[in-house]
Protein backbone atom coordinates (compact mmCIF):
# COMPACT_ATOMS: atom_id res chain seq x y z
CA UNK A 1 0.00 0.00 0.00
CA UNK A 2 1.08 3.54 -0.67
CA UNK A 3 3.15 4.66 2.30
CA UNK A 4 1.74 8.15 2.56
CA UNK A 5 -1.79 6.75 2.36
CA UNK A 6 -1.09 4.23 5.11
CA UNK A 7 0.41 6.92 7.28
CA UNK A 8 -2.67 9.10 6.90
CA UNK A 9 -4.97 6.22 7.71
CA UNK A 10 -2.93 5.32 10.78
CA UNK A 11 -3.07 8.92 11.99
CA UNK A 12 -6.83 8.89 11.61
CA UNK A 13 -7.10 5.67 13.65
CA UNK A 14 -4.94 7.08 16.43
CA UNK A 15 -6.94 10.32 16.56
CA UNK A 16 -10.22 8.41 16.60
CA UNK A 17 -9.18 6.10 19.44
CA UNK A 18 -7.82 8.90 21.60
CA UNK A 19 -10.96 10.98 20.98
CA UNK A 20 -12.98 8.36 22.87
CA UNK A 21 -10.67 8.33 25.86
CA UNK A 22 -7.10 9.23 26.81
CA UNK A 23 -4.66 6.45 25.96
CA UNK A 24 -1.02 5.59 26.53
CA UNK A 25 1.33 4.42 23.78
CA UNK A 26 1.40 0.71 24.43
CA UNK A 27 -2.38 0.57 24.73
CA UNK A 28 -2.70 2.27 21.34
CA UNK A 29 -0.31 -0.09 19.57
CA UNK A 30 -2.17 -3.09 21.05
CA UNK A 31 -5.53 -1.79 19.95
CA UNK A 32 -4.46 -0.91 16.43
CA UNK A 33 -2.39 -4.01 15.78
CA UNK A 34 -5.42 -6.15 16.64
CA UNK A 35 -7.12 -4.71 13.56
CA UNK A 36 -4.37 -3.62 11.20
CA UNK A 37 -0.94 -5.04 10.42
CA UNK A 38 1.54 -2.30 11.35
CA UNK A 39 5.11 -1.92 12.50
CA UNK A 40 4.47 -1.10 16.12
CA UNK A 41 7.56 1.07 16.25
CA UNK A 42 6.00 3.56 13.87
CA UNK A 43 3.22 4.54 16.29
CA UNK A 44 5.60 6.55 18.47
CA UNK A 45 6.99 8.83 15.75
CA UNK A 46 3.37 9.46 14.73
CA UNK A 47 2.37 10.31 18.31
CA UNK A 48 5.29 12.70 18.53
CA UNK A 49 4.30 14.45 15.34
CA UNK A 50 0.66 14.81 16.34
CA UNK A 51 1.74 16.13 19.75
CA UNK A 52 4.12 18.56 18.12
CA UNK A 53 1.35 19.85 15.92
CA UNK A 54 -0.70 20.43 19.08
CA UNK A 55 -3.39 17.87 18.29
CA UNK A 56 -2.46 16.03 21.48
CA UNK A 57 -1.29 17.02 24.91
CA UNK A 58 0.45 14.49 27.14
CA UNK A 59 0.62 13.79 30.84
CA UNK A 60 2.43 11.19 32.91
CA UNK A 61 0.70 8.83 35.33
CA UNK A 62 2.95 6.99 37.76
CA UNK A 63 1.84 3.51 38.65
CA UNK A 64 3.02 1.51 41.63
CA UNK A 65 5.33 -1.31 40.64
CA UNK A 66 4.97 -0.76 36.90
CA UNK A 67 6.37 1.66 34.38
CA UNK A 68 4.84 5.13 34.32
CA UNK A 69 2.34 5.78 31.55
CA UNK A 70 2.46 8.69 29.15
CA UNK A 71 -1.15 9.47 28.28
CA UNK A 72 -2.25 11.31 25.16
CA UNK A 73 -5.31 13.59 25.17
CA UNK A 74 -6.98 15.13 22.15
CA UNK A 75 -7.01 18.96 22.10
CA UNK A 76 -9.65 21.22 20.56
CA UNK A 77 -7.38 21.68 17.58
CA UNK A 78 -7.05 17.89 17.40
CA UNK A 79 -10.82 17.48 17.42
CA UNK A 80 -11.16 19.82 14.43
CA UNK A 81 -8.42 17.97 12.62
CA UNK A 82 -10.03 14.61 13.37
CA UNK A 83 -13.38 15.82 11.99
CA UNK A 84 -11.73 17.08 8.84
CA UNK A 85 -9.83 13.83 8.29
CA UNK A 86 -12.85 11.71 9.15
CA UNK A 87 -15.03 13.42 6.54
CA UNK A 88 -12.25 13.21 3.96
CA UNK A 89 -11.88 9.51 4.65
CA UNK A 90 -15.58 8.77 4.59
CA UNK A 91 -16.19 10.53 1.30
CA UNK A 92 -13.13 8.85 -0.17
CA UNK A 93 -14.20 5.42 1.08
CA UNK A 94 -17.73 5.99 -0.16
CA UNK A 95 -16.42 6.84 -3.61
CA UNK A 96 -14.19 3.78 -3.70
CA UNK A 97 -16.99 1.49 -2.55
CA UNK A 98 -19.35 2.81 -5.15
CA UNK A 99 -16.82 2.27 -7.89
CA UNK A 100 -16.16 -1.28 -6.68
CA UNK A 101 -19.83 -2.16 -6.58
CA UNK A 102 -20.67 -0.69 -9.97
CA UNK A 103 -21.53 -3.33 -12.56
Amino acid at each position, binding site marked *: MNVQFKKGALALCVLAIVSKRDCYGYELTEKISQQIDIS*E*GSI*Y*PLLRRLTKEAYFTTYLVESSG*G*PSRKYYRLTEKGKDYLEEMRSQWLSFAKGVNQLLEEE
Partner: protein
Amino acid sequence: MTKYGFLNELDQLLSGLDTDERKEILEDYEEHFAFAKRAGKSDEEVMTLMGMPADIAREILENKVEGGFFEESDTYKLQEEALNKQAAALDEKAKALEEKLAAQAKILEEQAEALAAQKEAQEHTGFGHQVGSLVDTLTETVGTVVESVSEVITETFEHELASLPENAVESETLIQEVVEMTGVKNVVIKARNQKVDIRKTTYPTARVRLTRGVLAMKVENDTLYIESREIKRKFRISGLISIELSAELKIDLPEQVYDLIQAKTSNAKMAVSDIELDQLNLESSNGKLEIHTTKANELALQTSNGKIEVKDSTGHVHAKTTNGKIELTRIEGCVNVKSTNGKLEFEGITGDIEATTTNGKIKLDNHIIDQQVKMTTSNARIEITLQDKPEHATFELLTSHAKTKLFETDRNYDVFGDGRHQVKLSTSHAKIEVGLETDA
Protein backbone atom coordinates in the same frame (compact mmCIF):
# COMPACT_ATOMS: atom_id res chain seq x y z
CA MET B 1 19.82 -8.39 18.99
CA THR B 2 18.97 -7.58 22.59
CA LYS B 3 16.63 -4.88 23.78
CA TYR B 4 19.65 -2.77 24.72
CA GLY B 5 21.16 -3.37 21.32
CA PHE B 6 17.92 -2.17 19.78
CA LEU B 7 17.73 0.94 21.95
CA ASN B 8 21.40 1.64 21.54
CA GLU B 9 21.18 1.40 17.78
CA LEU B 10 18.18 3.72 17.74
CA ASP B 11 20.06 6.13 19.96
CA GLN B 12 23.04 6.10 17.59
CA LEU B 13 20.82 6.67 14.57
CA LEU B 14 19.24 9.65 16.25
CA SER B 15 22.52 11.22 17.27
CA GLY B 16 21.64 14.25 15.14
CA LEU B 17 18.83 15.23 17.51
CA ASP B 18 19.42 17.04 20.76
CA THR B 19 19.85 15.04 23.94
CA ASP B 20 16.52 15.83 25.56
CA GLU B 21 14.50 14.87 22.54
CA ARG B 22 16.47 11.67 22.08
CA LYS B 23 15.95 10.77 25.71
CA GLU B 24 12.21 11.30 25.41
CA ILE B 25 12.00 9.11 22.33
CA LEU B 26 14.00 6.30 23.94
CA GLU B 27 11.82 6.50 27.04
CA ASP B 28 8.74 5.93 24.88
CA TYR B 29 10.28 2.73 23.54
CA GLU B 30 11.50 1.59 26.93
CA GLU B 31 7.99 2.07 28.26
CA HIS B 32 6.72 -0.04 25.39
CA PHE B 33 9.16 -2.86 26.20
CA ALA B 34 8.18 -2.72 29.87
CA PHE B 35 4.44 -3.02 29.16
CA ALA B 36 4.97 -5.78 26.63
CA LYS B 37 6.99 -7.70 29.21
CA ARG B 38 4.17 -7.41 31.72
CA ALA B 39 1.83 -8.74 29.03
CA GLY B 40 4.11 -11.78 28.77
CA LYS B 41 5.90 -10.92 25.55
CA SER B 42 9.61 -11.55 25.14
CA ASP B 43 11.91 -8.75 24.01
CA GLU B 44 12.50 -10.66 20.76
CA GLU B 45 8.77 -10.77 20.00
CA VAL B 46 8.46 -7.06 20.74
CA MET B 47 11.32 -6.21 18.44
CA THR B 48 9.88 -8.30 15.60
CA LEU B 49 6.61 -6.39 15.84
CA MET B 50 8.39 -3.10 16.30
CA GLY B 51 10.29 -3.05 13.01
CA MET B 52 13.91 -2.08 12.38
CA PRO B 53 15.56 0.75 14.34
CA ALA B 54 16.67 2.24 11.03
CA ASP B 55 13.05 2.49 9.80
CA ILE B 56 11.89 4.02 13.07
CA ALA B 57 14.73 6.53 13.05
CA ARG B 58 13.94 7.47 9.47
CA GLU B 59 10.34 8.09 10.37
CA ILE B 60 11.27 10.25 13.32
CA LEU B 61 13.76 12.26 11.32
CA GLU B 62 11.33 12.68 8.41
CA ASN B 63 8.67 13.91 10.78
CA LYS B 64 11.14 16.39 12.13
CA VAL B 65 11.35 18.12 8.79
CA GLU B 66 7.88 17.72 7.32
CA GLY B 67 5.77 17.91 10.48
CA GLY B 68 5.27 20.65 13.03
CA PHE B 69 4.19 23.99 11.65
CA PHE B 70 6.35 25.83 14.11
CA GLU B 71 9.42 23.65 14.37
CA GLU B 72 9.76 23.28 10.65
CA SER B 73 11.28 26.63 9.88
CA ASP B 74 13.46 26.50 12.98
CA THR B 75 14.87 23.15 11.97
CA TYR B 76 15.80 24.47 8.59
CA LYS B 77 17.22 27.60 10.07
CA LEU B 78 19.41 25.64 12.45
CA GLN B 79 20.60 23.36 9.68
CA GLU B 80 21.41 26.34 7.52
CA GLU B 81 23.25 28.05 10.33
CA ALA B 82 25.30 24.93 11.01
CA LEU B 83 26.15 24.64 7.32
CA ASN B 84 27.14 28.29 7.15
CA LYS B 85 29.38 27.82 10.14
CA GLN B 86 31.02 24.81 8.54
CA ALA B 87 31.54 26.73 5.32
CA ALA B 88 33.13 29.63 7.19
CA ALA B 89 35.43 27.27 9.08
CA LEU B 90 36.47 25.61 5.83
CA ASP B 91 37.13 28.99 4.26
CA GLU B 92 39.35 29.90 7.15
CA LYS B 93 41.24 26.63 6.90
CA ALA B 94 41.76 27.17 3.17
CA LYS B 95 43.03 30.65 3.85
CA ALA B 96 45.43 29.45 6.51
CA LEU B 97 46.72 26.75 4.16
CA GLU B 98 47.20 29.26 1.40
CA GLU B 99 49.18 31.50 3.71
CA LYS B 100 51.27 28.57 4.86
CA LEU B 101 52.01 27.56 1.28
CA ALA B 102 52.91 31.13 0.37
CA ALA B 103 55.33 31.24 3.31
CA GLN B 104 56.88 27.94 2.26
CA ALA B 105 57.18 29.13 -1.32
CA LYS B 106 58.97 32.22 -0.06
CA ILE B 107 61.44 30.16 1.93
CA LEU B 108 62.15 27.99 -1.08
CA GLU B 109 62.61 31.05 -3.25
CA GLU B 110 65.11 32.42 -0.79
CA GLN B 111 66.92 29.13 -0.76
CA ALA B 112 66.97 29.13 -4.54
CA GLU B 113 68.47 32.60 -4.51
CA ALA B 114 71.09 31.59 -2.00
CA LEU B 115 71.94 28.57 -4.09
CA ALA B 116 72.13 30.64 -7.24
CA ALA B 117 74.69 32.82 -5.49
CA GLN B 118 76.55 29.73 -4.33
CA LYS B 119 76.43 28.37 -7.84
CA GLU B 120 78.02 31.47 -9.26
CA ALA B 121 80.78 31.27 -6.73
CA GLN B 122 81.37 27.60 -7.38
CA GLU B 123 81.04 27.66 -11.16
CA HIS B 124 84.64 26.66 -11.70
CA THR B 125 84.42 23.65 -9.38
CA GLY B 126 82.32 21.79 -11.92
CA PHE B 127 79.28 20.81 -9.92
CA GLY B 128 77.68 24.21 -9.51
CA HIS B 129 75.10 23.42 -12.18
CA GLN B 130 73.92 20.43 -10.22
CA VAL B 131 72.94 22.61 -7.29
CA GLY B 132 70.51 24.67 -9.36
CA SER B 133 68.42 21.67 -10.34
CA LEU B 134 68.53 20.44 -6.78
CA VAL B 135 66.08 23.08 -5.65
CA ASP B 136 63.56 22.08 -8.29
CA THR B 137 63.73 18.39 -7.58
CA LEU B 138 63.47 18.87 -3.86
CA THR B 139 60.47 21.14 -4.17
CA GLU B 140 58.88 18.47 -6.29
CA THR B 141 59.73 15.80 -3.76
CA VAL B 142 57.85 17.52 -1.00
CA GLY B 143 54.74 17.77 -3.13
CA THR B 144 54.69 14.25 -4.50
CA VAL B 145 55.41 12.45 -1.24
CA VAL B 146 52.58 14.22 0.51
CA GLU B 147 50.19 13.52 -2.33
CA SER B 148 51.08 9.90 -2.87
CA VAL B 149 50.76 9.00 0.79
CA SER B 150 47.37 10.60 1.27
CA GLU B 151 46.06 9.18 -1.99
CA VAL B 152 46.87 5.62 -1.08
CA ILE B 153 45.41 6.02 2.35
CA THR B 154 42.10 7.60 1.37
CA GLU B 155 41.67 5.09 -1.42
CA THR B 156 42.19 2.04 0.71
CA PHE B 157 39.86 3.16 3.45
CA GLU B 158 36.98 3.81 1.16
CA HIS B 159 35.29 0.42 1.36
CA GLU B 160 33.27 0.42 4.52
CA LEU B 161 31.15 -2.22 6.19
CA ALA B 162 28.29 -2.66 3.73
CA SER B 163 25.76 -3.82 6.29
CA LEU B 164 26.00 -4.30 10.00
CA PRO B 165 25.66 -7.66 11.67
CA GLU B 166 22.53 -7.93 13.76
CA ASN B 167 23.33 -10.84 15.99
CA ALA B 168 25.01 -8.62 18.56
CA VAL B 169 25.94 -10.14 21.90
CA GLU B 170 26.31 -7.86 24.86
CA SER B 171 28.16 -8.76 28.03
CA GLU B 172 29.91 -7.23 31.00
CA THR B 173 32.37 -10.11 30.95
CA LEU B 174 34.35 -11.98 28.33
CA ILE B 175 32.57 -12.85 25.10
CA GLN B 176 34.20 -15.63 23.16
CA GLU B 177 33.21 -16.86 19.71
CA VAL B 178 34.65 -19.38 17.29
CA VAL B 179 34.23 -18.79 13.57
CA GLU B 180 34.50 -21.34 10.79
CA MET B 181 36.95 -19.81 8.30
CA THR B 182 36.70 -22.10 5.27
CA GLY B 183 36.63 -19.91 2.18
CA VAL B 184 37.05 -16.66 4.13
CA LYS B 185 39.52 -14.38 2.36
CA ASN B 186 38.76 -11.01 3.93
CA VAL B 187 38.36 -9.80 7.48
CA VAL B 188 36.75 -6.42 8.13
CA ILE B 189 36.82 -5.14 11.69
CA LYS B 190 35.23 -2.10 13.22
CA ALA B 191 35.73 -1.30 16.89
CA ARG B 192 34.98 1.72 18.94
CA ASN B 193 37.23 2.87 21.78
CA GLN B 194 38.56 -0.65 22.04
CA LYS B 195 42.00 -2.09 21.58
CA VAL B 196 42.29 -4.44 18.63
CA ASP B 197 44.78 -7.28 18.59
CA ILE B 198 45.07 -9.52 15.52
CA ARG B 199 47.36 -12.51 15.51
CA LYS B 200 47.89 -15.93 14.01
CA THR B 201 46.65 -19.14 15.56
CA THR B 202 47.50 -22.72 14.68
CA TYR B 203 43.85 -23.78 15.04
CA PRO B 204 41.82 -24.11 11.84
CA THR B 205 39.06 -21.83 13.17
CA ALA B 206 39.18 -18.20 14.12
CA ARG B 207 38.68 -17.16 17.71
CA VAL B 208 37.22 -13.76 18.56
CA ARG B 209 37.27 -12.51 22.13
CA LEU B 210 36.00 -9.28 23.56
CA THR B 211 36.81 -8.61 27.20
CA ARG B 212 33.53 -6.74 27.62
CA GLY B 213 31.12 -4.83 25.42
CA VAL B 214 28.90 -5.51 22.44
CA LEU B 215 30.12 -7.89 19.75
CA ALA B 216 28.48 -8.67 16.41
CA MET B 217 29.80 -10.88 13.66
CA LYS B 218 28.82 -12.40 10.36
CA VAL B 219 30.38 -14.18 7.42
CA GLU B 220 29.11 -13.02 4.07
CA ASN B 221 30.52 -14.37 0.81
CA ASP B 222 34.22 -14.61 1.57
CA THR B 223 34.34 -11.89 4.20
CA LEU B 224 34.20 -12.06 7.97
CA TYR B 225 32.74 -8.89 9.47
CA ILE B 226 33.40 -8.13 13.11
CA GLU B 227 32.00 -5.15 14.89
CA SER B 228 32.36 -4.26 18.53
CA ARG B 229 31.53 -1.34 20.69
CA GLU B 230 31.39 -0.42 24.33
CA ILE B 231 28.30 -0.88 26.46
CA LYS B 232 26.52 2.35 26.96
CA ARG B 233 24.59 2.66 30.17
CA LYS B 234 22.95 5.94 29.43
CA PHE B 235 19.39 4.83 30.10
CA ARG B 236 17.83 5.62 33.43
CA ILE B 237 20.98 6.80 35.08
CA SER B 238 20.74 10.47 34.43
CA GLY B 239 22.92 12.34 36.85
CA LEU B 240 25.42 9.54 37.13
CA ILE B 241 28.64 9.52 35.22
CA SER B 242 29.31 6.13 33.74
CA ILE B 243 32.94 5.15 33.57
CA GLU B 244 33.93 3.06 30.59
CA LEU B 245 36.50 0.42 31.37
CA SER B 246 38.84 -0.13 28.49
CA ALA B 247 38.11 -3.28 26.57
CA GLU B 248 40.10 -5.35 24.13
CA LEU B 249 39.02 -7.15 20.97
CA LYS B 250 41.34 -10.08 20.33
CA ILE B 251 41.16 -11.87 17.01
CA ASP B 252 43.11 -15.04 16.36
CA LEU B 253 43.13 -15.97 12.69
CA PRO B 254 44.09 -19.37 11.28
CA GLU B 255 47.20 -19.43 9.19
CA GLN B 256 46.51 -18.72 5.51
CA VAL B 257 47.14 -15.94 2.99
CA TYR B 258 44.29 -13.44 3.31
CA ASP B 259 43.26 -11.01 0.59
CA LEU B 260 42.35 -8.14 2.87
CA ILE B 261 42.31 -7.37 6.54
CA GLN B 262 40.85 -4.03 7.44
CA ALA B 263 40.47 -2.71 10.96
CA LYS B 264 39.25 0.56 12.30
CA THR B 265 39.09 1.78 15.89
CA SER B 266 39.36 5.00 17.76
CA ASN B 267 41.16 6.13 20.87
CA ALA B 268 42.87 2.79 21.17
CA LYS B 269 45.86 0.79 20.09
CA MET B 270 45.88 -1.75 17.27
CA ALA B 271 48.35 -4.57 16.93
CA VAL B 272 48.88 -7.12 14.17
CA SER B 273 51.40 -9.91 14.24
CA ASP B 274 52.38 -13.00 12.26
CA ILE B 275 49.79 -12.51 9.54
CA GLU B 276 50.25 -13.19 5.85
CA LEU B 277 48.05 -11.32 3.39
CA ASP B 278 47.76 -9.13 0.32
CA GLN B 279 46.45 -5.89 1.77
CA LEU B 280 46.43 -4.67 5.36
CA ASN B 281 44.51 -1.50 6.20
CA LEU B 282 44.59 -0.14 9.72
CA GLU B 283 43.07 3.09 10.88
CA SER B 284 42.92 4.42 14.39
CA SER B 285 42.68 7.84 15.83
CA ASN B 286 44.54 8.77 18.96
CA GLY B 287 46.04 5.32 19.09
CA LYS B 288 49.25 3.49 18.37
CA LEU B 289 49.60 1.04 15.47
CA GLU B 290 51.96 -1.87 15.92
CA ILE B 291 52.74 -4.39 13.19
CA HIS B 292 55.18 -7.23 13.77
CA THR B 293 56.39 -10.09 11.55
CA THR B 294 53.66 -9.58 9.02
CA LYS B 295 53.94 -10.37 5.34
CA ALA B 296 51.85 -8.30 2.96
CA ASN B 297 51.94 -6.66 -0.45
CA GLU B 298 50.54 -3.38 0.81
CA LEU B 299 50.29 -2.04 4.32
CA ALA B 300 48.23 1.13 4.67
CA LEU B 301 48.48 2.52 8.17
CA GLN B 302 46.88 5.66 9.43
CA THR B 303 46.45 7.22 12.85
CA SER B 304 46.62 10.56 14.51
CA ASN B 305 48.31 11.50 17.75
CA GLY B 306 49.82 8.07 17.84
CA LYS B 307 52.97 6.21 17.00
CA ILE B 308 53.26 3.79 14.07
CA GLU B 309 55.66 0.91 14.50
CA VAL B 310 56.41 -1.77 11.91
CA LYS B 311 59.01 -4.43 12.60
CA ASP B 312 60.38 -7.45 10.77
CA SER B 313 57.77 -7.24 8.06
CA THR B 314 57.46 -7.42 4.30
CA GLY B 315 55.50 -5.19 1.96
CA HIS B 316 55.04 -1.69 0.67
CA VAL B 317 54.41 0.41 3.78
CA HIS B 318 52.24 3.53 3.56
CA ALA B 319 52.14 5.19 6.96
CA LYS B 320 50.58 8.45 7.97
CA THR B 321 50.20 10.03 11.39
CA THR B 322 50.12 13.43 12.94
CA ASN B 323 51.92 14.23 16.14
CA GLY B 324 53.37 10.76 16.26
CA LYS B 325 56.63 8.99 15.69
CA ILE B 326 56.99 6.49 12.85
CA GLU B 327 59.44 3.67 13.41
CA LEU B 328 60.14 1.13 10.67
CA THR B 329 62.62 -1.62 11.41
CA ARG B 330 63.81 -4.40 9.11
CA ILE B 331 61.32 -3.92 6.30
CA GLU B 332 61.57 -5.83 3.08
CA GLY B 333 59.92 -3.38 0.70
CA CYS B 334 59.37 0.27 -0.09
CA VAL B 335 58.16 2.79 2.45
CA ASN B 336 56.13 5.97 2.00
CA VAL B 337 55.83 7.80 5.25
CA LYS B 338 54.32 11.03 6.41
CA SER B 339 54.05 12.60 9.82
CA THR B 340 53.82 16.07 11.15
CA ASN B 341 55.60 16.91 14.35
CA GLY B 342 56.88 13.37 14.55
CA LYS B 343 60.26 11.72 14.44
CA LEU B 344 60.90 9.23 11.64
CA GLU B 345 63.24 6.34 12.32
CA PHE B 346 64.22 3.74 9.77
CA GLU B 347 66.46 0.75 10.13
CA GLY B 348 67.23 -1.91 7.58
CA ILE B 349 64.92 -0.90 4.76
CA THR B 350 65.46 -2.72 1.46
CA GLY B 351 63.15 -0.72 -0.86
CA ASP B 352 62.79 2.91 -1.85
CA ILE B 353 62.20 5.41 0.93
CA GLU B 354 60.02 8.49 0.76
CA ALA B 355 59.70 10.30 4.05
CA THR B 356 58.16 13.64 4.95
CA THR B 357 57.70 15.29 8.31
CA THR B 358 57.96 18.69 9.86
CA ASN B 359 59.68 19.54 13.09
CA GLY B 360 60.83 15.97 13.39
CA LYS B 361 64.21 14.35 13.05
CA ILE B 362 64.71 11.74 10.32
CA LYS B 363 67.12 8.91 10.97
CA LEU B 364 68.12 5.98 8.76
CA ASP B 365 70.42 3.12 9.71
CA ASN B 366 71.02 0.91 6.71
CA HIS B 367 73.61 -1.57 5.62
CA ILE B 368 74.12 0.22 2.34
CA ILE B 369 72.20 2.52 -0.01
CA ASP B 370 70.80 0.33 -2.74
CA GLN B 371 67.58 2.26 -3.39
CA GLN B 372 66.06 5.69 -4.05
CA VAL B 373 65.78 7.86 -0.95
CA LYS B 374 63.86 11.12 -0.54
CA MET B 375 63.63 12.69 2.88
CA THR B 376 62.11 16.04 3.74
CA THR B 377 61.72 17.74 7.09
CA SER B 378 62.16 21.19 8.50
CA ASN B 379 63.70 22.52 11.66
CA ALA B 380 65.18 19.12 12.39
CA ARG B 381 68.20 17.01 11.55
CA ILE B 382 68.55 14.26 8.98
CA GLU B 383 71.01 11.51 9.84
CA ILE B 384 71.96 8.55 7.71
CA THR B 385 74.36 5.94 9.02
CA LEU B 386 75.61 3.16 6.74
CA GLN B 387 77.84 0.17 7.23
CA ASP B 388 79.37 0.43 3.79
CA LYS B 389 79.76 3.23 1.28
CA PRO B 390 77.21 2.94 -1.53
CA GLU B 391 78.38 1.55 -4.86
CA HIS B 392 76.10 3.55 -7.11
CA ALA B 393 74.48 6.64 -5.67
CA THR B 394 74.03 10.37 -6.13
CA PHE B 395 73.75 12.39 -2.93
CA GLU B 396 72.04 15.78 -2.85
CA LEU B 397 71.86 17.47 0.54
CA LEU B 398 69.90 20.69 0.93
CA THR B 399 69.63 22.72 4.10
CA SER B 400 69.69 26.35 4.95
CA HIS B 401 71.54 28.05 7.76
CA ALA B 402 73.29 24.83 8.70
CA LYS B 403 76.07 22.49 7.72
CA THR B 404 76.05 19.31 5.71
CA LYS B 405 78.36 16.39 6.27
CA LEU B 406 78.79 13.76 3.58
CA PHE B 407 81.22 10.96 4.47
CA GLU B 408 83.55 13.20 6.48
CA THR B 409 83.44 16.05 3.94
CA ASP B 410 81.39 19.22 4.03
CA ARG B 411 80.11 18.71 0.51
CA ASN B 412 76.42 18.68 -0.33
CA TYR B 413 76.69 16.80 -3.59
CA ASP B 414 78.57 13.67 -4.55
CA VAL B 415 78.33 10.80 -6.99
CA PHE B 416 79.37 7.21 -6.39
CA GLY B 417 79.71 4.71 -9.22
CA ASP B 418 77.14 5.33 -11.93
CA GLY B 419 75.03 7.37 -9.47
CA ARG B 420 71.81 5.50 -10.24
CA HIS B 421 70.40 5.63 -6.71
CA GLN B 422 69.23 9.15 -5.93
CA VAL B 423 69.50 10.22 -2.30
CA LYS B 424 67.77 13.58 -1.83
CA LEU B 425 67.70 15.03 1.65
CA SER B 426 66.17 18.35 2.54
CA THR B 427 65.65 20.30 5.75
CA SER B 428 66.05 23.80 7.04
CA HIS B 429 67.84 25.28 10.02
CA ALA B 430 69.39 21.92 10.84
CA LYS B 431 72.30 19.72 9.98
CA ILE B 432 72.31 16.87 7.48
CA GLU B 433 74.77 14.09 8.14
CA VAL B 434 75.57 11.05 6.04
CA GLY B 435 78.28 8.81 7.37
CA LEU B 436 79.59 5.36 8.08
CA GLU B 437 79.05 3.52 11.32
CA THR B 438 82.78 3.18 11.77
CA ASP B 439 83.24 6.96 11.59
CA ALA B 440 80.99 7.60 14.53
